[in-house]
């Protein structure tokens, strides 16, 4: 038994286990559930019923079986390659986005450490710079899919996607500068712990949203644009360029694009929670002295999940409320409004820190 435990506790195996737990038990299930949640929630907004037909006998699970039905359908659907497509690039393109979406979770802690054990795959030194590196990988998925499918609509979508994602990476980085300055680190654990401080005695937690309100709005906008969700879904452009860069895909590869979209939706929500809403820290919990560790951990996981789900809901609500930007308007918003605003944010943050110091 000790021998087994020793093997499990080696860092490599432990990391693998954490990856399995966080990604397979948190990110992916939440992502797949969100496909149904989005359909149900949009149905509620639009005063209709939503999916409720898939069934096993009498059991429908209020639409829950649609997830399984969709998955099965994708698996058994023919995996087509259009004539004239660049086969290899076409086949690997869908997985860039999925990998990038999943990799975000590597640095997100979902609960506080217990002794040496952390609820985080790895707390890399560069911290959030890792996120920027990973999300820029995301561009390749869209660009390769767009250029390799030998379709003009896909090509237009691919070029739109590349321009939009590369531009919004800039503002994403700049919007986070304020956070780096306030908490004095790029490490995720440092930022999360920094948010566990309080102002005015124990009144207001120093969450990112209170220290960086403008940064919060800018970063959220940039992230939504980066994941190409509505209202920034010009690369998909379902009404003019049909489905954009993944127009030609079918079957499981198409599902990989969809799954990537929903997993990155969860990723965005988890990032917003981590950076702006205190991460896993439950506010005012330190007032409860001698709280048993297991209760604290469970509360932390619950708090983290709750805020993540709230942000997922917010993105869905956003999508079904507002119309879409035109492509050039997306770019205009980025370069003409978000860029100056994020620079102003950096300067103001720097001045405030200087005067307080």
């Amino acid at each position: 038994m000790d021998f087994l435990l020793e093997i499990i506790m080696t860092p490599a195996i432990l990391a693998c286990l954490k990856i399995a737990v966080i990604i397979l038990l948190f990110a992916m299930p939440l992502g797949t559930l969100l496909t149904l949640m989005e359909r149900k929630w949009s149905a509620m907004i639009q005063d209709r019923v939503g999916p409720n037909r898939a069934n096993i006998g009498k059991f429908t699970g209020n639409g829950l079986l649609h997830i399984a039905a969709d998955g099965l359908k994708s698996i058994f659907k023919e995996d087509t390659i259009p004539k004239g497509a660049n086969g290899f690039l076409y086949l690997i393109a869908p997985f860039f986005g999925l990998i990038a979406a999943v990799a975000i979770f590597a640095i997100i802690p979902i609960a506080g450490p217990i002794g040496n054990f952390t609820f985080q795959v790895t707390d890399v030194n560069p911290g959030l710079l890792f996120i920027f590196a990973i999300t820029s990988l995301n561009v390749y998925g869209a660009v390769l899919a767009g250029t390799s499918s030998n379709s003009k609509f896909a090509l237009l979508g691919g070029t739109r996607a590349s321009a939009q994602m590369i531009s919004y990476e800039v503002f994403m980085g700049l919007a986070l500068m304020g956070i780096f300055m306030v908490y004095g680190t790029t490490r995720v654990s440092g930022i999360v712990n920094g948010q566990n401080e309080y102002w005015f005695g124990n009144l207001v937690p120093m969450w990112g949203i209170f220290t960086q309100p403008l940064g919060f709005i800018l970063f959220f906008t940039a992230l939504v644009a980066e994941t190409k969700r509505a209202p920034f879904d010009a690369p998909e452009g379902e009404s003019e360029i049909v489905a954009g860069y993944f127009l030609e895909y079918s079957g499981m590869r198409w599902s990989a694009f969809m799954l990537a979209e929903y997993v990155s939706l969860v990723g965005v929500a988890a990032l917003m929670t981590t950076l702006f809403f205190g991460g896993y820290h439950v506010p005012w919990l330190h007032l409860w002295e001698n709280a048993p560790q297991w209760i604290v951990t469970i509360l932390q996981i619950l708090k983290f999940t709750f805020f993540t789900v709230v942000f997922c809901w917010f993105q869905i609500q956003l999508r079904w409320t507002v119309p879409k930007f035109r492509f050039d308007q997306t770019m205009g918003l980025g370069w003409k409004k978000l860029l100056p605003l994020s620079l102003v944010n950096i300067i103001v943050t720097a001045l405030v820190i200087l005067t307080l110091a």
Partner: protein
Amino acid sequence: MTDMTTLQARTGTSSSSTDFSSSVMTIEIGPAHPAMHGIVRFTTKLDGELIVEMEPEIGYLHRGFEKESENSKWIQVIPYTDRLNYVSPLLCNIGYSMAVEKLYGIQAPRRAEFTRVIMGEISRITDHLTCVGAAAMEIGAFTFFLWFIKAREYLWELVEEMTGARLTTNWTRFGGNSMDLPDGFLSDLEDRLSKLESIMEECDKLLTRNKIFIDRVKDVGAISKEDALSYGFSGPMLRACGIPYDVRRADPYSVYDELDFEIPVGSTGDCFDRFLVRMEEIRQSTSIIKQAADKMPAGPFMTDERMLHYPDKKDVYGNIEGLIDHFKMVMEGHHPPEGEIYMPTEGGNGEIGFYLVSDGSGDPVRVRLRPPCFNFVQAMPLMTIGHYVADIVPIFGSINMIGGELDR
């Protein structure tokens, strides 16, 4: 460029990368495309995302309505007119029947006319709801669209109550309507209109002052007064340019001159003006319906002139004139007097005009429809060239092309 393409086609490599680096890319939008409401094709040349050339190709839904009408009896054309504009079938019913009545030189009883006004305006509202909702949906306001469809559903239930069908109404006859108002119709009408008004109010709040929406439609697809007139625009598209031309006022027919309504006009003729004009017309139509319901006279819903409708069964079995009339109606149908007329009515999209020629023989010699959106589609190049490819969506949405009446 051509050589490159053929070379690549032979070697089987992708041609898309070279298309990108070349200056102009040809892209076929339609016939099956999410933004094309009916089936229509736009052969578009793009410079990057800018449209430099566009050529509309219509006729995919040509069913030979006009020729088919020549091989039918006069009365048999009415069901075909249901299928002309499939979002406001009653307006085409009414337009055709009024044209034949003009040929006869008769008028339907006042009760029939008021009922026609009510049903016509209901159809105008459903038309505008569909058009505005679909256009908004295509630029991303999906919720708005489904709310409008919900409102349209209320009205279509009324249409069903009146005619027995939602789309294939086949409701009007020469000299009246096939059916009178059903029991309790007017109170249902009031109820549905108040539901419509509350949905309109909510949707107005949701979209009309939304910055993203205004950015998408403002100054997009604008057309000048002169161009609009020279292309033969009519209806909301023309009124959005600032010309208050409405057949209901310019050439009053039915009982529209007894009703009080305003003609909303825009100023710039862009997609936003068209949106606002249609939204206001929905409100005006609601008020017209209310006035007509208040003024609804008692009386017959069908003219009592001979040879315009089947005689009563008691006459058919009771006297020889009735029997002969019935026999001749069944065997020969209507015999409008010899002549030719043009009867314009205000449809959902604009002026729906029927040009009819009769030689008195009982078969139509010519049934010609002037569809409003025919002219709009011709002006698509004028409205889109110089805009982005994404602007095709709101521009084409604001046209409200209906394949049925465009291709006939």
